[in-house]
């Protein structure tokens, strides 16, 4: 996620909040599941790592946006330690008003890594 640090807390987002959003929106649906058979978006799309990154973005973006603070900036999914895919949203490469307005402002990125259940 990317945004301006809160002047009081110094946080871009509360890490615990982000962790809970990821748990609720993604991990409960994906963790220990057969992606093809048990996750609805992969009934019609092949669960390549690219498509998993896109699907996770689509699951997280409404919740992050609704919170009104930081914006979702990217989702990176590691398939192995050496292979990964990334998605930066539908506006990637499309110049828009927002990026022109806010492009020069200071932004801080925060990433979270959440361990899998049972590990």
């Amino acid at each position: 996620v990317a945004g301006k640090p809160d002047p009081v807390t110094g946080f871009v987002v509360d890490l615990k909040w982000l962790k809970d959003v990821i748990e609720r929106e993604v991990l409960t649906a994906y963790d220990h599941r057969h992606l093809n058979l048990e996750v609805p978006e992969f009934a019609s799309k092949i669960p390549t790592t690219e498509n998993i990154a896109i699907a996770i973005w689509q699951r997280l973006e409404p919740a992050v946006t609704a919170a009104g603070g930081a914006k979702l900036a990217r989702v990176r999914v590691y398939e192995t330690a050496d292979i990964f895919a990334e998605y930066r949203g539908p506006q990637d490469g499309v110049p828009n008003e927002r990026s022109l307005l806010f492009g020069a402002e200071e932004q801080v990125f925060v990433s979270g890594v959440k361990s899998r259940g049972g590990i």
Partner: protein
Amino acid sequence: MIAYFGRRYLMSASHRLHTDALSAEENQAAYGKCNNPHGHGHNYMVEVLARGPVDPETGMVINLAVMDEAVQTRVLDRFDHANLNHDPMFTAVVPTTENLCKAVYKLLQGSLAPAKLEYVRVEETENNFFEYFGEAL
């Protein structure tokens, strides 16, 4: 739908940091131990990120095998277990990891169709790394 696909590759190579533009003392001051006459080695980690539309049929930005083939033939066959100073790309350019990053970028540019090269990242040690995004930045 634009997405990214990345992969990490290992290669081992040696180099000596030295430029004829500087005196022996100046080289030593600029590069320290890395200026020792017989060079030294690194296990480099080369990370390649490709950017492009996700193919609606395959669900892929680029086939992993296409990237592997390009990196193997253009980069690893050339630099792995080689002395970088002996490579024509480094006759007039000091083989710092910055310049290695740029060299790898140049060698891979245009080889990842239908995706495009987004960046090359080279980790020289666990704590030193370099990234090159091309000249547009």
